[in-house]
C-alpha cells in the first residue's frame, strides 16, 4: 500500500511581512580601527516577493545578509521575524526562526560537506528535529525536495556525493537543504554568480517557481544588475554603497529610471549582450575610480569624491537622508537630485 504523501505545509500568504531589518549596523573591530561595514540599514522581506540587494564588493551586502540570517548579531538595530526580535527569542522561537529563515552560500563547492551524500545533507535537519519518523519517510521527503529544485529523477541523486555533481547540481542540493524545513525566507548570497549562464538561468527559473508557488520570500544578493532585473522584476531593488542604502524602489523604476548617480553609474557600466546597444551606450564617468576605505570614510555623502553631481558644501557636509522621492515609492539618498526634484515639482 503506498504511503500517503506528506501534506503540503501551510505557506504564508503572499505579501506577509516575514523579516524586518531596522537600523541594522555592523561594525567590525580590527587592528586598523573600527570598520563600519553596515551603517544603518532598513529592509523588509515579504512572502512571495524578492528584495534584491545590489552593490560592489565591500559595500556591506553580504554582511547585511548574514545579519538578516541570524549568522551574526548586529552591533545595533534589530532583526525581526514575524514581528519578534530575533535576538531575544527563546529556544523554541529560535528553532522556528532557524527553520523558517535559511541562507544559501555563494560557492556550492564549499557549502556541501564532501563526506556526506545528498540524502544525508538534505535530510540532516529533518532527522535531527524529528520531522520524519523513519528512514523511508526521510528518503521520500528528500526525493520530494530534490524534485522541487528540479533534480530529477530524484532517486538517482540521493546517494551521490558532492564531488559527483556539477556546480549547478550542487547549488540545487544546497537549495533543497534550505527548503527542507519548509523555510519561508531564503537569503541567497550571490548564489548564482559562480554558475555558467545557461545553468544560472535555469536555477533562477527554479527559484522563481519557489517564489510564486510556495510564496518563499527572497533576500537576493547580487552584483549583477541584469540578474537583479530578471529575478526581482516584481519586487524591489536596494542599491548599497559603503554600508548604506543609497536608492531603493520597485525594480522597473530603479533599472529603467535610476536617480542616484551611483545607481546610474552601475547601470551604465553593465556590458550589454547586444553589440549595437553596447556601442551606443555612454557610461557615466565618475570623478574617481577607487572606492574609499571603510576605515576612512569621506565626510557627508560617502559617494561625493566619485560623484559626477558633486557640489561643494552641500555634499561634503552632511550625509543625505534616505527619503521618499516625490512622495512616490522610491527611496533616495542624494542631496542634489532630491533638491532638483523638489524645485521641478514646485516650478
Amino acid at each position, binding site marked *: 500500500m503506498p504511503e500517503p504523501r506528506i501534506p503540503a505545509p501551510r505557506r504564508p500568504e503572499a505579501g506577509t511581512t516575514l523579516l524586518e531589518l531596522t537600523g541594522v549596523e555592523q561594525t567590525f573591530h580590527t587592528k586598523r580601527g573600527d570598520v563600519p561595514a553596515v551603517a544603518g540599514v532598513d529592509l523588509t522581506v515579504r512572502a512571495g516577493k524578492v528584495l534584491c540587494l545590489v552593490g*560592489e*564588493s565591500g559595500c556591506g551586502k553580504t554582511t547585511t545578509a548574514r545579519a538578516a540570517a541570524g549568522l551574526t548579531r548586529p552591533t545595533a538595530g534589530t532583526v525581526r521575524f514575524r514581528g519578534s526580535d530575533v535576538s531575544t527569542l527563546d529556544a523554541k522561537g529560535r528553532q522556528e526562526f532557524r527553520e523558517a529563515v535559511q541562507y544559501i552560500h555563494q560557492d556550492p563547492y564549499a557549502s556541501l560537506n564532501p563526506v556526506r551524500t545528498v540524502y544525508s545533507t538534505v535530510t540532516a535537519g529533518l532527522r535531527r528535529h524529528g520531522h520524519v519518523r523513519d528512514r523511508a519517510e526521510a528518503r521520500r521527503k528528500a526525493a520530494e525536495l530534490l524534485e522541487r529544485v528540479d533534480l530529477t529523477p530524484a532517486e538517482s541523486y540521493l546517494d551521490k556525493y558532492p564531488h559527483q555533481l*556539477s556546480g*549547478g547540481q550542487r547549488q540545487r542540493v544546497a537549495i533543497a537543504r534550505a527548503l527542507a524545513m519548509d523555510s519561508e525566507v531564503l537569503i541567497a548570497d550571490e548564489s548564482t554568480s559562480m554558475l*555558467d*549562464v*545557461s*545553468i*544560472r*538561468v*535555469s536555477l*533562477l*527559473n527554479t527559484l522563481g517557481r519557489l517564489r510564486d508557488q510556495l510564496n518563499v520570500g527572497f533576500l537576493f544578493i547580487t*552584483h549583477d*544588475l*541584469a*540578474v537583479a*532585473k*530578471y529575478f526581482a*522584476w516584481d519586487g524591489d531593488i536596494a542599491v548599497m554603497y559603503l554600508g548604506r542604502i543609497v536608492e531603493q524602489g520597485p525594480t*522597473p523604476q530603479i*533599472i*529603467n529610471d535610476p536617480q542616484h548617480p551611483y545607481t546610474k*553609474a*552601475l*547601470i*551604465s*557600466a*553593465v*556590458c*550589454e*549582450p*547586444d*553589440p*549595437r*546597444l*553596447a556601442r551606443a*551606450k555612454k*557610461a557615466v564617468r*565618475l570623478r574617481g*575610480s*577607487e572606492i574609499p576605505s571603510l576605515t576612512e570614510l569621506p565626510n557627508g555623502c560617502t559617494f561625493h569624491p566619485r560623484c559626477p553631481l558633486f557640489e561643494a558644501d552641500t555634499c561634503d557636509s552632511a550625509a543625505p537622508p534616505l527619503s521618499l522621492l516625490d512622495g512616490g515609492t522610491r527611496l533616495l539618498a542624494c542631496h542634489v537630485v532630491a533638491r532638483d526634484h523638489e524645485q521641478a515639482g514646485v516650478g
Partner: protein
Amino acid sequence: MTEPILSVRDLSIMYTTGRKTGVTAAADVSFDLYPGQSMALVGESGCGKTTLGLGLLRLLPRLGKVSSGEIVYRFKDGMSLDILRLGKEDLRKFRWHEAAMVFQGAMNSFNPVLRIGEHFTDTLRSHEGGERRLTRADIAERAAELLRMVRLEPARVLRSFPHELSGGMKQRILIALALALEPQVLVLDEPTTALDILTQRSIVEQLHELRERLGFAMVFITHDLGLAAELADRVATMYAGRIIETGTAEDVFYEPRHPYTVGLIKAVPPVVGDLPELSSIPGSPPSLADLPSGCSFHPRCGYVRDECTGTRPELTVLTERALDEGHAAACLRAGEIEYTRKVVASA
C-alpha cells in the same frame, strides 16, 4: 588585400591524463585574425576556450600538446613564422615582441614578494635588444610610460607590492606589462572576470582606447556575452572543443545560426530595455573524454534529427564577406534556425 596576422588551421590540442588515453580539449580549430581586429572566443566553462588561447602562444601546461594543425604568424613585411616549429629562444622572443598573454586571475600573476617596479624591470630586461643594455633610467621611463597608458600613477604603483593594489589596478598593470614590447597580438583570458562592475567598465574602456592608439589585434576569451558584444569585431562560439559558429558580432548576436549560440544568447538577461523571457539549454555540457557521436550538441538540441547523431557538421559559410570567413555555423540545419525573443514585460 590585407593578410591575416595570425592564421590557425585545423589546430587540435590534447591532454594526456594518467594512464587513460588523451582528451581532446580543442579540435580542428581554424580561424584568421587580421591586424587590429578583436575576436572573442565565447563558451561555457570546459568548452576548451582557455586551452585554445594558451595553445596560440604555446603556453600549454605540461600535459597539454598540440596534436595537429598549424599556427602561422605574419610580420608586416609579409614574412611568416610557423609558431609550432619555433625553437625555445625564438618562441620566447615571439611571446613578448609579437604576441603577449594576459592571464586570468590578476591576483595570481604576480610574484608577491616583488614590487611592481621589479616586475617591469624583469620583463624589460629579459627581452632587451642586443645593441645596448637598458639603463635603470630607461627602464623607469618605459615603465612609467606604460603605466600612464593604462591611467595609473607610476610613482606610487612602481613602489607598491602586488597585495597593496586593488584587483582592477593589478589587471591594468598586467595589460601594461603585456604591452611592454609592443606586441601586435594580445591574448586575454577572462580579462574582467571577478572584477567589480565599475572596474570592469574602466578595463573595457581602457582596452578600446589602447587598441585605437596602438592598433594591436586581440583575441579574448570570455564566458560573458556582454563583454563580447562590447569589445569584439568577431565572435567565435565554442562548444566541446570546437568552434561551432563564427561571424561578426552583429551576425552572432542578431542572427545566430547554431542552436547552441541561440541558447546562450537566450540565457543572458539585458539590463537596458524590455524584460525578455530567459530560457536555459537543457542538460549539461558533455565531458570532453566522452563526447556524443555526430554533432556533440545533439543530446541537448531542440533541432536534432536522425542524421545529427551520425555526422558531425563542418563549419560552413552562410554569408560570404570580404576579409575573413564571414558568418559560418556548424549545424546541419543552420538555415532553419530561428531566433526570436519573447518579451515578458516591456520597459
